[in-house]
């Protein structure tokens, strides 16, 4: 039987369905995607190491655009990513929609983030506001009925304009002519009508934005540059901790109500799988990014990692593989104490993009098991000289490149960069990274 992941990777790498500007860029696209595919699959040594800096806000910074302009002027945003892709020619480029659209959040009165133009200076990138968006008493609601929890509790806490959703009747009343009235009446109240109007406007604003952005993304891909991921999902524990309970509250929950934490993680697990697969399929790119947060070295003990973090993450990764996707964990912080767990998958099915983990150890522990990537310090790009970057890049390649199974990258989602150092990094990667 044909392996679903092999098939999806093959389709993506072929560039099928993309209208390339000419045969030369088509070949360049296929060259890049195949470098990444080969690095992931560990079946053959690629021509060279693929170079994939995680460009997040960096394209905006490199062209001296303020984050506010990027969030409020779609053309400026789109053009910056086109320019970055063509000028820097990474093997996988940044994803413009990750910058997001300010006006949408203005309409919704987004509370969970501050952004330039929404509570932050124009020159700052958006930042998360840590809070308990899910209260202790919501555990049972989440576990019993996640969708109902999200509609009627979460939306109103995350978005000021959607607070009236808290008074909406459950959807289950909509089945019978005699019962449907109470549901409809709850939707018809003046505050709810106002909230629905805001949601409608925000949806329209976001849709128009993405329609305006799509030609730029088309231009990037048709110029030969794949994007570094097709979708994203989370480890269930991070999903619960990052934006639902908050770090502090979840860490206490591990002692105060461990059984609820475990039940919530279990309930969220299939949702995390479905989300990742759906996004990857919609974007035609099998790579699903999973940023790892609260399971890192120093955050919890090995025993806690085994109990609360790893089972959920492992199941999500297995589910993604089964769905034909490539789980690519963005391993933030250090994972030096956890490397043995990461090898627990069939050969060539997963990838790990590291931040502070010791790359020599990662190579040793995951050799012949999984693709590794990243590991170059952002500090060198921002505060080092091009020659220092060249030396550091060569050292990293000597350590990590092996005979395949490595993706050269910078160990964080890059918000800022410098032209001379980043260009040298990419150039050295392409030349010195030849196998």
């Amino acid at each position, binding site marked *: 039987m044909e392996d679903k992941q092999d098939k999806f990777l093959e389709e993506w790498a072929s560039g099928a369905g993309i209208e390339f500007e000419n045969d030369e860029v088509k070949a360049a696209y296929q060259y890049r995607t195949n470098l990444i595919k080969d690095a992931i699959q560990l079946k053959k040594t690629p021509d060279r190491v693929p170079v994939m800096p995680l460009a997040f806000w960096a394209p905006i910074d490199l062209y001296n655009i303020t984050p506010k302009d990027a969030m409020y002027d779609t053309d400026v945003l789109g053009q910056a990513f086109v320019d970055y892709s063509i000028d820097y020619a990474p093997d996988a480029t940044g994803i413009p929609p990750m910058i997001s659209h300010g006006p949408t959040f203005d309409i919704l009165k987004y509370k969970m983030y501050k952004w330039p133009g929404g509570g932050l200076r124009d020159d700052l*990138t958006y930042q998360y506001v840590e809070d308990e968006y899910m209260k202790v008493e919501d555990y049972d609601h989440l576990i019993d009925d996640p969708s109902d929890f999200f509609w009627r509790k979460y939306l109103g806490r995350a978005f000021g304009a959607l607070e009236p959703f808290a008074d909406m009747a459950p959807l289950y009343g909509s089945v019978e002519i005699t019962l449907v009235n109470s549901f409809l009446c709850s939707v018809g109240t003046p505050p709810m009508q106002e909230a629905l109007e805001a949601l409608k406007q925000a949806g329209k604003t976001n849709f128009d934005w993405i329609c305006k952005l799509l030609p730029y993304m088309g231009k990037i891909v048709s110029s030969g540059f794949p994007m570094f991921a097709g979708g994203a999902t989370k480890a269930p524990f991070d999903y619960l901790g990052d934006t639902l309970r908050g770090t502090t509250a979840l860490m206490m929950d591990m002692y105060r109500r461990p059984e609820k934490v475990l039940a919530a993680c279990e309930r969220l697990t299939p949702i995390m799988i479905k989300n990742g697969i759906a996004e990857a399929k919609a974007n035609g790119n099998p790579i699903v990014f999973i940023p790892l947060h609260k399971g890192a070295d120093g955050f919890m003990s090995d025993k806690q990692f085994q109990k609360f973090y790893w089972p959920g993450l492992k199941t999500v990764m297995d589910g993604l593989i089964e769905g034909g996707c490539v789980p690519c964990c963005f391993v933030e912080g250090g994972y030096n104490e956890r490397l043995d767990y990461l090898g627990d998958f069939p050969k060539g099915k997963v990838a790990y993009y590291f931040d502070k983990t010791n790359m020599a150890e990662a190579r040793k522990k995951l050799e012949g098991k999984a693709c590794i990537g990243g590991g170059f310090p952002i500090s060198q790009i921002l505060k080092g000289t091009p020659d220092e970057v060249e030396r550091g890049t060569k050292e990293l390649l000597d350590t990590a490149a092996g005979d395949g199974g490595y993706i050269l990258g910078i160990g964080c989602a890059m918000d800022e960069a410098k032209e001379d150092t980043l260009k040298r990094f990419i150039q050295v990667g392409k030349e010195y990274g030849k196998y």
Partner: protein
Amino acid sequence: MQELINAMVEMEEDKFLSLTKELLEKGEDPNAIFRAYQEGMAEIGRRFEQNEFFIPELIMAGEMMNDGAELIKPYLDEDAQAEKTSIGTMVLATIEGDIHDIGKNIYGMMMELSGFEVIDLGVDVPVDTIIAKVEEVKPELIGMSGLLTLAFDPMKAVVDKLKEKGLRDSVKVMVGGGQFDQTVCDFIGADGYSTDAVVGVNICKGWLEA
């Protein structure tokens, strides 16, 4: 009293609080209870350093300490507040432009548990506010936190201002956050950096002992 300390160290929050109440009602000296807390904290700190305890235990310990102190408060005389001894003072802030506070809070808590007095200025704190506070309280230490790389430049501005004002030699500067390393530390001109709260606390202890 040992039972109280054990309950704290074993993270038995309910037992810890009920034992505190019991002891207070029996007329135990509130200062003695407070000293037991400190003993418990010292043990928690020790386990932290030995990688037996991690962030969940630290947060739980901080929470127990706060809740316990609330219970003790009404039993203390107006003028006989719980004894407080400090081994040094740190002015602590998340630097301007950055609103993340979890790392700073955990570090601040660790510093307090280790006997430092911490003056926490909050998040997104302007360079001049930090300098003004340093001039006012003359701390031994400045701690600056930042999750984002955009934190590097304003941190350097703080150190440059300290030099300008002739304050640089009177204070040690500690910086921390996910993307800090020696390159960044040198660029800022800080005395030390850490990506880990415990390491960061130990560096500060080392400075004051030197």
